């Protein structure tokens, strides 16, 4: 704020440095502070962490980025928390205890014991957010907000809901956690199994939002995908969470994540699967994915994650688009759409069906979706139909669908890609 201190690192540089750092640190700090304050004060933890980040954005442009930015953020959040707590009257009974824990809190990045505690705190926070007494949508929304710093707007687009609805849901969820005195812990036995599904759903949402971002310049937000993989890896290292379904989730994230870097060219244009340079696919991630797929196959469970991991594996091990085992992929989609009933799955199945039995079959599979009108405002429905109509040699119908799709997507690179398809159509 100070007017005379205008010696800064390049103005554009700060957001680049802070973006990933904040996304990574926010969940870590919120969960650690929640461990100290208690889950009933979740909002306080969120507030002081955001305060610390704002302070960073206010001062770093002038002072430069500190040598250890993570430690700086922790220290600032801690000071802020101490200040708030010291003046809170209604907090009296636990106050001395909390102040002692905060004061003894030494932000030392290199201390492995400390890092382990953070990991557990973060998992505890996800489990608390996914308490079965909270409605399912609220669980996911709260976890995305507290652990990943999502705004109600971003959450709304991931859920196909509205910003106001999400904001209300968040407020009610925090109140309910406080009222019910939901413990900040990883539950055991049956309770764990019940909650694990919610936890996995949160991670899956996070990955999907990164894999096909709903807003912004780029279709991919890699940091979100990697955050999802990181959280799932933390979780699977916990003996009680080491389940086949979680391995399936990891397998699908690793194998889809492996192909992220090839999805856009250097100019940020979207590349279709058949146009991608497969040598850019991350072989080590594919390897990790296949290992998790093997672990996922132990036990008799066949979840939606298993089927998606199977589909991702078919793409990853194929040497080219032509040699891809589309029949097998279609088989997985058949099973997936039988369990899920989601129109988005039907849409994806139609793409696979068109590859195996031709575009007409693909269009046929979309009839029920069109009748129900569930995906009318979903741009991918129109993008897929445009593609199928073009292959059926109906350029006029294809044009209409591509135009509709362009109107419906909020992502710039997606719009550019569709505009190119539209231009090709008009030939």
């Amino acid at each position, binding site marked *: *704020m100070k*007017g005379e201190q205008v010696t800064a690192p390049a*103005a554009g540089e700060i*957001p680049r440095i802070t973006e990933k750092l904040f996304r990574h640190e926010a969940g870590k700090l919120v969960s650690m502070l929640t461990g100290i304050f208690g889950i009933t004060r979740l909002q306080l933890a969120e507030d002081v962490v955001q*305060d610390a*980040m704002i302070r960073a954005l206010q001062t770093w442009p002038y002072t430069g980025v500190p040598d250890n930015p993570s430690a700086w953020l922790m220290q600032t959040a801690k000071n802020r928390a101490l200040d708030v707590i010291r003046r809170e009257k209604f907090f009296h009974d636990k106050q001395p205890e909390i102040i002692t824990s905060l004061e003894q809190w030494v932000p030392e990045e290199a201390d492995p014991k400390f890092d382990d505690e953070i990991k557990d705190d973060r998992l505890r926070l996800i489990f608390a957010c996914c308490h079965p007494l909270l409605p399912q949508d609220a669980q996911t929304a709260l976890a995305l907000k507290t652990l990943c710093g999502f*705004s109600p707007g971003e959450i709304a687009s991931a859920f196909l809901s509205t910003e106001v609805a999400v*904001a209300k849901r968040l407020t009610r969820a925090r109140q309910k956690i406080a009222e019910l005195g939901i413990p900040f812990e990883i539950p055991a036995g049956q309770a764990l199994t019940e909650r694990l599904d919610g936890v996995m759903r949160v991670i899956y949402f996070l990955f999907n939002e990164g894999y096909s971002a709903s807003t912004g310049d780029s279709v991919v937000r890699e940091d979100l995908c990697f955050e999802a993989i990181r959280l799932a890896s933390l979780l699977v290292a916990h003996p009680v969470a080491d389940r086949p379904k979680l391995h399936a989730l990891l397998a699908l994230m690793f194998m889809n994540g492996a192909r992220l870097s090839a999805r856009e060219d250097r100019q940020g244009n979207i590349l279709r699967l058949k146009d991608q340079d497969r040598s850019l696919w991350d072989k080590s991630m594919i390897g990790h994915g296949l290992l998790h797929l093997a672990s996922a196959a132990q036990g008799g469970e066949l979840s939606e994650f298993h089927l998606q991991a199977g589909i991702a594996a078919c793409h990853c091990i194929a040497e080219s688009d032509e040699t891809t085992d589309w029949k097998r992929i279609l088989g997985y989609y058949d099973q997936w759409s039988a369990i899920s009933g989601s129109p988005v799955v039907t849409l994806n199945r139609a793409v696979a069906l068109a590859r195996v039995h031709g575009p007409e079959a693909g269009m046929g599979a979309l009839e029920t979706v069109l009748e129900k009108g569930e995906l009318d405002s979903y741009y991918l429905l129109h993008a897929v139909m445009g593609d199928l109509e073009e292959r059926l040699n109906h350029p006029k119908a294809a044009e209409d669908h591509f135009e509709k799709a362009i109107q419906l997507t909020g992502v710039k690179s997606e719009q550019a890609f569709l505009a190119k398809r539209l231009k090709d159509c008009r030939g």
Partner: protein
Amino acid sequence: MSKSQYLLLFRDTNWHRELSLNEIQEIMSRTNAWFEGLSQQGIMKAGQPLDGVGAEVSYQSGSVVDGPFTETKESVGGYILIEAASLEEAVAIARQNPMVPCGLKVEVRPVAEDCPASRLAKQKLFTVGA
């Protein structure tokens, strides 16, 4: 027309509560640019963010105590001192703060021309000096 000084107090430190990190970053960089602009145009004379909520001292039931405190969200998060031709102009400047649409409150206060306390202090100094 001669310029007067105005103190802009920024209140409601929870303006960021329902925003994503990306949104906060975007608003903060616009805010920093706004401060820099004011400073370069010579409008802003001083300014600082304030750390934490500190302490408050008041008189209650016959003795001096710490507190009672105002709500955290009402506390002052920072201030700037500006020069403007009128209160209207100062308010117009305050309205441009990019954090206002998110819920930040700005209190705009004209700085009094003459402070009786400091005049007294100056006089004493003069007397001592003489």
